[in-house]
């Protein structure tokens, strides 16, 4: 092995910081997988690895939560309301081939294969905070592309004011859909300016690999300044609408889950405080973290809600 002395290193040979960080992510994720494979009954990650994914704008340099925690603690009521059992049950879902229907107020509606959607949209990595309405949070290195870029390609009409997303409905595999914990199929929505915001991501991977099934494979939404339930999983339909769509949690308990669901420590959930959050993966003696308004993305998104009473439009 040739050991170079420092004066001989050309600047072109110095590893770019983003590449270095990406490598660290790969190592970290790989360690997560090797640990997972040692555990009985655990779910190891998919084989498909993403390589050399550039770091996108708005990605934050945050301490990433362990892959193990993120992939074994999910709310996926399509399967069960139990966060750890969902990890096992979701493995029965077939995520390939996958099609997404795009319709409503667009000039180019249609049913598109996921590969074709991905072909046209270069992937990037975004390390985001993720805050659940249940007052816990994590930091996830997502891989995906801005939703706005995709929507533009289908040419929304001037009447398109909202976007509705729908999760796959398949109660044979998604056995939770046989129950009534939520109105099925799961639906979520964004206002068009929220959907076009460059922070809003459609994710196909995390931790340099394909999304695990329990984390919403093959295609999920990530809206980092809103509570996690807005970030709908396993999307099969994207519909542009003139009026505000009904959403699953809002239908279930309108007094508790509004359409906007912006992270806001000043507006408690009617049954619990939102002032603090428990960080997943922290030691049991680590105090809770104070929740930031818009989950810390206020600088980017506060302008979207100028003049709105966020206590009323929660």
């Amino acid at each position, binding site marked *: 092995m040739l050991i170079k002395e420092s004066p001989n290193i050309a600047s072109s040979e110095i590893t770019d910081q983003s590449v270095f960080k990406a490598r660290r992510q790969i190592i970290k994720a790989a360690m997560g997988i090797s640990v997972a494979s040692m555990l009985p009954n655990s779910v190891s990650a998919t084989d498909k690895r993403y390589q050399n994914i550039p770091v996108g704008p708005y990605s934050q340099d945050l301490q990433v939560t362990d892959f193990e925690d993120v992939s074994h603690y999910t709310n996926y*009521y399509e399967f069960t309301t139990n*966060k750890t059992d969902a990890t096992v049950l979701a493995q029965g879902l077939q995520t390939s081939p996958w099609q997404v229907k795009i319709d409503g107020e667009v000039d180019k509606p249609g049913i598109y294969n996921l590969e074709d959607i991905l072909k046209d949209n270069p992937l990037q990595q975004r390390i985001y905070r993720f805050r659940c309405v*249940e007052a816990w949070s994590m930091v996830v290195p997502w891989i995906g592309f801005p939703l706005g870029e995709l929507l533009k390609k289908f040419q929304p009409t001037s009447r398109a004011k909202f976007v509705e997303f729908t999760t796959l409905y398949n109660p044979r595999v998604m056995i939770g859909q046989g129950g009534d914990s939520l109105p099925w199929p799961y639906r979520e929505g964004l206002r068009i300016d929220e959907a076009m915001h460059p922070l809003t991501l459609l994710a196909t991977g995390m931790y340099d690999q394909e999304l695990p099934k329990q984390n919403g494979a093959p295609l999920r939404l990530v809206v980092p300044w809103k509570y996690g339930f807005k970030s709908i999983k396993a999307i099969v339909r994207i519909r542009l609408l003139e009026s505000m769509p009904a959403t699953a*949690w809002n239908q279930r308990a309108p007094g508790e889950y509004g359409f906007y669901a912006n992270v806001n420590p000043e507006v408690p959930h009617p049954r619990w405080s939102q002032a*603090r959050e*428990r960080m*997943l993966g922290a030691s*049991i003696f680590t105090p809770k973290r104070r929740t930031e308004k818009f989950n810390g993305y206020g600088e980017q998104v506060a302008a979207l809600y100028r003049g709105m009473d966020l206590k009323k439009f929660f």
Partner: protein
Amino acid sequence: MQPSKQAWGLIKLAVFIVCLTPFLLLCLDTWQDNLGANPIEALHIRLGDWALRFLCLNLFLSPYKHLTGQHWVNRFRRMLGLYCFFYAFMHLLVYIVLDLSLSSQALLDEIRESPYILFGLITFVLLLPMAMTSSKNMQRRLGKNWKRLHSLIYPAAITAVLHYILLVKSDLNEPLIYADIVLILLAYRLIRHIKKQRIMVKTS
């Protein structure tokens, strides 16, 4: 055949160990870092579940005795009651020490913003005097009032179930199982009480 005094001692010891086992398993899981991604939540849920199970078990003792005539259950009443308190106390301790990091400001904020925290604390306040007066000595000293004081278990059962119902996001199946058990056990007492009153009215 009645077991001897010595045999009862051994039986009591065995029951004591069985009741402590969930706690020991929880300690083991904590020690081995086996509580999942959100260990404090896991501690909360498991301690809370056991407190509620022991509460239901205590409520079940009297109807069982009445219906089967097996009076030996009285020997375990105090131990099971104290176990309910023990698990409830550990549940509260995890909340105050680990969840709130002993911050009184955080506690005040949570009481103000969370009705389920309030119901949890009320439940604990109701259980506390019963645990404090559980000794034979206190029972003797309080006389008739002891029984009166220990009927606090009825409101405590109701607030405990409300505490659970209010924290669940959408799937009410589990808390409703406990709610049903508590309702049946309380309804049994109410009906028995009404029947007794009628008999008393008739005989007087």
